[in-house]
């Protein structure tokens, strides 16, 4: 316990560089290390290093590291003070802020009880607690805002050259651990708003109930003003933090994803070969080349030759007479001729003899037609017979066509 705050601030003012140096040393210092640090910050008129070390202990600026009697570290309250002065605020988790809200809820119940029993002293006590909690909440929310801005600036400058993935991890942590829950907390539909609204109403009813006690009314009004300021500050800080880190979050997310995707692609090439990615078709770079085109000179020559072309006499076409005999045989005519010629003992031979010019395919087509619709009774011979039709050897069981009466 510091017996004399003035001594503390006088010492702090005189030895601020030493305090700042100690603040940035996060690991404990041995006696020797501590004296070395002090030695770096003293000037000839200063007291001895041992004396300064003694003052550091007596003013509760340093204390021993728990479990290590000869190692020293800066005390928590002084660290918090320096953190505030150096604008290096740390983030307060939403759980802690929720704790403040729980405390406000409890103080609200206490105040309600005091108002119910017209207990002025109890009400004054409850208002004091409410104001204290409201200020802590406001300060921590404000510190969060500063801490988020600091982190954002550090990530932007990236003096330590951290990989994209690591920077994204940091901002993602801020986002998930502080921004999302905080947004939930200040959402107008959520419990925090309801609690603060009801607290404000209760404080207002207190001003009416104790209207004749000016001092008490001043306390009620003061607490309401603190409450209003806290709510405005929290909302403003949150939205400013959001504006600061949202674009950075998005940038780092994309960069981290790109880096990760490139590594994934390389790993896949390693495992499955470059063809597995089919990168040529994904890039789809056109591979267009002209093939088989004629040169302009060649085309000009052709056109020149064509321009002077005069057709001669048309050649006489000869030798088609025989071919013209071959052609389509009308099935109706064939069936009619066949009816008159019945009986016959081998239809295929008869067709070959009576349909001059018909091809083998045509003869077989007519054979099928007669078989399906014979003009008389059909009988097949028991022995296979072979004959030559258009230089093709045809083997068949002769199909005889007889008159119906036979």
């Amino acid at each position, binding site marked *: 316990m510091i017996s004399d705050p003035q001594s503390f601030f006088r010492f702090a003012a005189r030895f601020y560089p030493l305090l700042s140096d100690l603040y940035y040393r996060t690991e404990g210092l041995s006696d020797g290390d501590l004296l070395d640090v002090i030695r770096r910050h003293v000037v000839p008129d200063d007291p001895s290093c041992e004396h300064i070390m003694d003052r550091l202990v007596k003013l509760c600026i340093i204390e021993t590291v728990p479990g290590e009697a000869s190692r020293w570290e800066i005390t928590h309250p002084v660290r918090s003070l320096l953190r505030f002065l150096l604008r290096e605020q740390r983030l307060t988790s939403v759980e802690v802020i929720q704790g403040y809200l729980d405390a406000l809820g409890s103080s609200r119940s206490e105040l309600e009880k005091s108002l119910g029993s017209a207990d002025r002293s109890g009400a004054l006590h409850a208002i004091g607690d409410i104001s204290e909690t409201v200020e802590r909440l406001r300060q921590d929310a404000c510190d969060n805002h500063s801490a988020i801005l600091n982190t954002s600036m550090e990530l932007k400058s*990236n003096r*330590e*050259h*951290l*990989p*994209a*993935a*690591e*920077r994204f991890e940091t901002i993602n942590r801020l986002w998930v651990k502080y921004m999302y829950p905080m947004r939930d907390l200040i959402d107008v539909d959520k419990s925090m708003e309801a609690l603060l609204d009801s607290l404000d109403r209760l404080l207002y009813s207190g001003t009416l109930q104790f209207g004749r006690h000016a001092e008490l009314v001043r306390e009620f009004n003061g607490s309401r003003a603190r409450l209003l300021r806290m709510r405005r500050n929290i909302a403003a800080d949150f939205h400013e933090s959001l504006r600061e880190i949202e674009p950075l979050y998005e*940038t780092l997310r994309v*960069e*981290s*994803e*790109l*880096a*990760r*995707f*490139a*590594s*994934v*692609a*390389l790993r*896949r*090439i*390693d495992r499955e*070969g*470059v063809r597995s*990615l*089919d*990168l*040529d*078709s*994904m*890039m*789809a*770079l*056109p*591979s*267009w080349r002209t093939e088989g085109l004629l040169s302009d000179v060649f085309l000009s020559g052709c056109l020149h030759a064509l321009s002077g072309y005069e057709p001669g006499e048309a050649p006489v076409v000869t030798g088609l007479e025989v071919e013209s005999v071959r052609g389509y045989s009308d099935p109706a005519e064939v069936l009619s001729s066949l009816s008159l010629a019945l009986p016959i003992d081998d239809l295929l031979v008869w067709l070959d003899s009576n349909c001059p010019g018909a091809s083998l395919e045509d003869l077989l087509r007519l054979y099928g037609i007669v078989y399906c619709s014979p003009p008389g009774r059909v009988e097949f011979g028991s022995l296979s017979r072979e004959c030559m039709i258009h230089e093709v050897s045809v083997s068949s069981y002769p199909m005889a066509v007889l008159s119906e009466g036979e």
Partner: protein
Amino acid sequence: MILSELPELKELFKKLRSGRHVSGEDGAIYRALAEHEEEFRTLFDSLGFVLLRHRRDFFYFRGGSGYSSFGTRIAVFFFILVEWIAERGERLEETLFTQSFLIADLPHFQRERYRKYMAEAGMEDADSLHNLFLRMERLGFLRRENEHSLRFRTPAYRLLDLCMEVLGESGEESS
């Protein structure tokens, strides 16, 4: 306007069909294309070519069939570059599009792992990398400032897109 009389038609068609990505840095041919985009698209479409405009405002033909085999080489070169920049803790987009790259500093043949990927894509030595730069310059992805350094042009955003597409294709490792 009669389609065959579109400005810079001959030069544009020649460049686009050879795979060139036409961006603002290409001057007159880019302006002609940007100002008569729809007419050019109609004309090229009737010739069987698909003209695409990237959201970063550059144009290119998407190959229909028979793609250039340089696609794989360019992609592998770029994946290595992206991983390397990210590892160095530099801002990816900012570094890619605002800085010059000294060819001698590039990591592609400096690490065994990267050499392996390059070999897999058919690039075994510095000469093949040099050829790749020539091709990438013709395609409009980069500009060589001199024989020692190069700078990426806006169309290299297509290569960043490719990183995303590859993961989309592979699927299994996306988050």
